[in-house]
């Protein structure tokens, strides 16, 4: 039973659900079985969000076990770290080097963003790819494109044809938004990933 596990994580409102749905649709178009687990409800009010996507010939269950994710697609650095133990020992973390501080409780320094997080990530991720999707999206003039850019970065590691990805993107977005999304996906798939965060 061979199943590909991809875990998406970040902060509520970053478009994580959309990314995972597009991956699931692309897998469906490629003729594969897919199950994913989403988060709704209380967890969405600025809390951390993760979705699990599992793809294979036949997928019985929808939650990824610790240390079995082939890919971790993190929209935020702290969330990458929170979920890093889901990665297999040969897994790849694709991380957008964005810092969204969690709710501060006081002005004391101990609640500030985790210092040295880049080093910790480098140390703990088996393999790490920084993809500054935020910068690319800003260049393209729409920060909401971050999710499709990260998908592009994931896509070049997967054996799903570009046609299936494009079909999935067209399924998910209105005709008006499709061109920008396809462009952003392409940018994510062809960018030079950084070895260190900007």
């Amino acid at each position, binding site marked *: 039973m061979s199943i590909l596990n991809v875990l998406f994580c970040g902060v509520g409102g970053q478009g994580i659900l959309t990314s995972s749905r597009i991956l699931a649709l692309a897998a469906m178009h*490629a003729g*594969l079985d897919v199950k994913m687990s*989403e988060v709704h409800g209380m967890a969405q009010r600025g809390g951390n969000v993760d979705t699990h996507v599992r793809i294979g010939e036949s997928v019985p269950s929808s939650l990824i076990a610790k240390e*079995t994710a082939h890919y971790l697609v993190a929209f935020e650095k702290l969330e990458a770290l*929170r979920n890093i*133990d889901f990665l297999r020992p040969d897994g790849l973390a694709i991380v957008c080097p964005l810092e969204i501080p969690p709710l501060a*409780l*006081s002005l004391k320094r101990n609640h500030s963003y*985790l210092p040295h997080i880049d080093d*910790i990530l480098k140390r703990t991720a088996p393999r790490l790819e920084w993809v500054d999707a935020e910068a690319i999206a800003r260049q393209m003039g729409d920060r909401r494109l971050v999710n499709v850019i990260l998908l592009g970065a994931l896509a070049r590691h997967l054996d799903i044809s570009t046609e299936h990805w494009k079909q999935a993107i067209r399924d998910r977005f209105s005709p008006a938004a499709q061109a920008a999304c396809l462009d952003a996906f392409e940018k994510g798939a062809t960018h030079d990933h950084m070895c260190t965060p900007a």
Partner: protein
Amino acid sequence: MKALLLGNAAVARGAWEASVAMGCGYPGTPSTEILEHLGRYKDVLVQWAPNEKVAYEVAMGVSLSGHRALVTMKHVGLNVAADPFFSSSYMGVNGGLVVACADDPGMHSSQDEQDNRHFARAARVLMVEPADAAEARWMTAAAFSLSERFDTPVLLRLTTRVCHQTALVELGDPPTADAANAAGHGYRKNIAKNVLLPGHARQRRLVVEERMAAATAFSNESDLWNPVHRGTSSVGVVTSGVAFGYVREVLPDASVLKIGLSYPIPIARIRSFAATVERLYVMEELDPFLEDAIRAAGIPVEGSSLRPFCGELNLTLVEAAFRKASEHGCTNASLDAESVATPLEASPDAATPGASPDAATRGASADAATRGASPEAASPAASPLGGTEVPPRPPTLCPGCGHRGMFSLFREMKLRVMGDIGCYTLGALKPLAAMDACLCMGASIGMAHGLTRFASPEDSSRTVAVIGDSTFFHSGIPSLLDMIVHGSNATVVILDNRWTAMTGAQPNPGTGLDVNGKPAPRFDIPGVCRALGVRRVREIDPYQLEECRQALEEELAAPEVSVIVSYKPCLLGTPRPAIAPAVTIDLDACDRCGACIRVGCMALHEHDGYPTVDSALCTGCQICLQVCEPHAISVNGFTGQTSSSRTSTEVPT
């Protein structure tokens, strides 16, 4: 044809395929999206009821009319609807009635973890349990036929991981006009069946028993509902719901009896399955519901001793359970530690479909397989973080949420706050931490009433009940009546944001819109409170902290029931409320007291010991501005310094 569907959307699809005439319910995670999706089918009438009991009674009326009805709620909602639910078992149905009820193992968004399978047994109704989204579709559709065949409501027991799973679902045919007509067979008057006077109910009690006997025979025979997956090993597992998927992955060789119709429990079927295997296990989430029945029938079985009782199951826990079974004297070869087939095992050559050859050949080291296979590997000690603590990121009130104003006042005024269920329950979390109790929907008012009866006058005058608009309609109104009738002097704060916000902004009786966004009569909260007999009713704007403080002080001091309605529309409502310009902070004026940070807004961060504003998140509500004593926070030059009550001309909106 297959489609990628959310489990809840699959329930809606199944109901539609079965020609359901109406769906009603009360929003509650994880069940909410069922009705939202059902509402997209034009030919189905969909309504949000003020509470689950009302929803259930409406659905019973639809059933009596001879049409099929779906009623939806979360697990605790069935507690509210328990009264009609139990009696409807005696009355039975005319048109099919399916009760979609979603449990929340692990309490992702709930105050308790009750296992609602017990409800089916207690009320003696049939229960079906899908294991995934695909089953959710066909089981929902088929449950309507079961309901009519056995003349009973059918409990469709869902859990978070089924409701919020997205998966490929094989679609059934859309309903044809003929099928829809056949499903609606018209009202039939039947007093002996439908008027539950004791004399009638005693007769119906016997009918219920006959029905359950017939349903048991059906459940025992049904290959469709309770299929056996014959494996090559001699281990047998009885399982239901999401546990089925975990069992299939962890023990692909085991024989599995999957219970889809889980009440009445098909004991005879389980007994004959047990006879075909050397060792029998049961794997189910939460309570040992099946297990207790299997044991009571004298069939040797193991299960709950191997797994945790609390929380959700997952692959790691199920694998650990079977590993424990193999260590604890199970001699069966197929449970030897090595042969537990696990998804944790790396199999680089069985190229993962979808993964590039490059990804597949990398594979995992032998070390990885063993490390991954041991449940301890997931414990913090062995985690690759090696002691680094990742700061938590709990959910918080949205920037600009009106609740923030009231809760920062509650904290500052050191009030005793009897809370309730909604977004504002987040006011219990740090840094607001301004709630003393939260029990269930609508409890705040009754609890404040009881608490103030036995508190000292000083404590009593520092106690408020806090309740949201939707929660007030749900079950707060009778409690307010109780306060009035019994001469309470408590103070009730109704946080009116016009929407049922926590579950994603569904309309409620105070919204003035129906589920499709069409205008509907709007329930006026202050007017209703006055009509009930509350003499002290006042309306405030929670962005105006001084006014709010004054209102609270005056009403707390008043020797009678008073109601303060704090009105500010939810930022997720439709249309979206307008956003004001973001505030700025003058760091030279800031004395680093941290008062602004303590209003608990995501738009305010700590940076090098100073507060900073994320202008993309700030909605310009100016709550932080008003708590800043040195007036370091401003918007367009306004710091609140000259006057505490701003006029609308000063604040562009």
